[in-house]
């Protein structure tokens, strides 16, 4: 059985459904990417799973961690899990840190709550964690405040806080989006390194397909509150089966090609309060038919591997696929 198992997770705000039944399994130590445009429900999925949504959100379905149900679980039980078994880091590290508390104390708080460490013992562990996430000269900087660190270093401190509880799963919500290119590269390397060392599972939420493919084994593509395609990273990029996945990949400018015109996906993401009756992507889809406008397709396993929800999935182009595979080799 999977370590974390999400089944038919649905979320509604004020009667408007934003998540329409998510099914996702995460194995022990697995790194999975969650990709999609803003508003597609990538973050809401995990905020719902951890009980972090505001009270007006209606959450239905099931999320289990080692068989233990999280949806509807009492607060005391969730507090045993948040931070200790599942930790989360966010896009903007400087707004997640407390500006009037020294960083050492903030990391120490996680250690006290989740591992019962105090005093000198806690301080030694804070230093070890700061070292591990690559903060130079940790001994001197443990008593500094967040504003004395750069954005990239604040993200490292957030990662140290998340690691303090020795979680089995780290959820990183757009962790590199606010960072500069060279610092983004450092954080991606840090996350993959930590995963190798600790064997922790990772959910990497991002709109940047490049960043996702750098750290994940598998990725799920979301559109308008549904998963539309899941596959291992290689196959997903070599042969995207859902027209939306294909569209996303085509829309990214190619750094190795010269000034070709970009291929955008026409139109915009639908309003969650006024979703099309059939497939939510149909109005923007080049392959849509009457069928797509009337019925929403289910996620179905494909012969080439992966699951896709589309009546007319894109067939893998053999030549293109072999070329991509060569790049990998």
């Amino acid at each position, binding site marked *: 059985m999977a370590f974390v198992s999400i089944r038919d997770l649905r979320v509604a705000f004020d009667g408007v459904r934003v998540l329409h039944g998510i099914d996702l399994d995460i194995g022990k130590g697995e790194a999975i990417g969650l990709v999609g*445009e*803003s508003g597609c429900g990538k973050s809401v999925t995990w905020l719902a799973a951890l009980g972090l949504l505001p009270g007006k959100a209606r959450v239905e379905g099931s999320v289990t961690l080692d068989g233990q149900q999280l949806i509807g679980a009492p607060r005391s039980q969730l507090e045993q899990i948040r931070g200790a078994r599942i930790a989360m880091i966010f896009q903007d590290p400087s707004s997640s840190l407390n500006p009037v508390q020294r960083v050492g104390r903030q990391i120490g708080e996680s250690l006290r709550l989740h591992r019962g460490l105090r005093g000198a013992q806690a301080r030694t562990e804070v230093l070890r964690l700061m070292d591990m996430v690559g903060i130079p000269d940790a001994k001197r900087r443990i008593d500094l405040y967040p504003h004395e660190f*750069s*954005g*990239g*270093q604040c993200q490292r401190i957030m990662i140290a806080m998340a690691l303090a509880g020795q979680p089995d799963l780290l959820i990183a919500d757009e962790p590199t989006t606010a960072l*500069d*290119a*060279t*610092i*983004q*590269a*450092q954080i*991606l*390397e840090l996350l*993959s390194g930590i995963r190798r060392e600790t064997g922790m599972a990772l959910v990497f939420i991002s*709109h*940047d*397909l*490049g*960043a996702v*493919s*750098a*750290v994940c084994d598998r990725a799920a593509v979301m559109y308008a509150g549904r998963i539309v395609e899941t596959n291992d*990273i*290689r196959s997903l*990029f*070599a042969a995207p089966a859902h027209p939306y996945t294909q*569209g*996303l*990949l085509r*829309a*990214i*400018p*190619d*750094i*190795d090609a*010269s*000034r*070709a*015109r*970009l*291929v*955008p*996906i*026409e139109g*915009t*993401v639908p309003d969650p309060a006024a979703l099309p009756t059939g497939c939510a992507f149909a109005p923007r889809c080049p392959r849509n038919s009457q069928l797509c406008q009337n019925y929403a397709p289910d996620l179905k396993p494909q012969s080439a591997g992966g699951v896709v929800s589309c009546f007319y999935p894109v067939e893998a182009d053999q030549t293109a696929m072999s070329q*991509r595979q060569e*790049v*990998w080799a």
Partner: protein
Amino acid sequence: MSILLDVRNVVQTYTTARTMFGRTSEIRAVDGIDLTVREGEILGIVGESGSGKSTLGRMLLGLETPSRGEVIYRGNPMPPPHSVEWRALRAHMQLIFQDPLAALDRRMTIARQIAEPLEIHGLAKGDALRNRVAELMAKVGLRKDQANRYPHELSGGQRQRVVIARALASAPRFLVCDEPVSALDVSIQAQVVNLLRDLQERERLTMVFISHDLKVVRNICDRVAVMYLGRVVEEAPSDQIFSDPRHPYTQALVSSIPRPGQGLSGRIVLSGEPPNPANRPTGCAFHPRCRFADAQCAATQPELQRHDGHLAACLKFVRARQFAA
């Protein structure tokens, strides 16, 4: 191609607020830049936050006067801000920002906002004004029925179209785009990039495109200048700078671009943080993070030098072969 803007050894210094002890310190946001913008080209300016990209952009538009050096627009020095000549120039040059919601007035319909520059510069009135607004909206791909909408009723991509339509209203010759697509989703980003390209080709606009997104820069720009801590460290045609970067910083920057479908292998990961302009390293500002730096780099500040079509400021010209290895 004739030269539209000529930047000659400009320096921009900001003074920080007084500290508790009454001390002020000087920050050099731009530290001696020579650059030309040719008529009809798209020049990309890339670099990390704090490298001085936006400050340079504002000086190109004459919104800031450099502390030293000068900016020459079509053979004449840039007039001082708020002078009569400067106001007249505003219609010729426009700025597009990253966040369209912040750039738009929430209480005005989009048609009114697009009409505003036409009224300010006295370019159209009455029916002519209405027709010009409709023409501008069509040009950027906004529908007629959206004219009376407010910014919050539009999506991010549509708002950026409104900002572009408004910038084009006075028929400018020169456009500075400061991170124009960074806040947009990938699929929408492609729509706006295509729009900017079409406009540039159709209207023969000259553009400076400031961005940290190298993939977009590669796609839209003819020429690219890479900035590090207030200086240009490399300048070359777009094709060359991405396929064969010469400056070690550009090499790291190009290799740090995550490529869909490829892992982390073969990347040059720089150690350390981008330096603080208030506390700049001696010699070459990049030397503390550079894998090729030696004692000479810490002592001498390199100047831009021509090298097979590239301009690069590095004491140790690193060949492309080493980069590939």
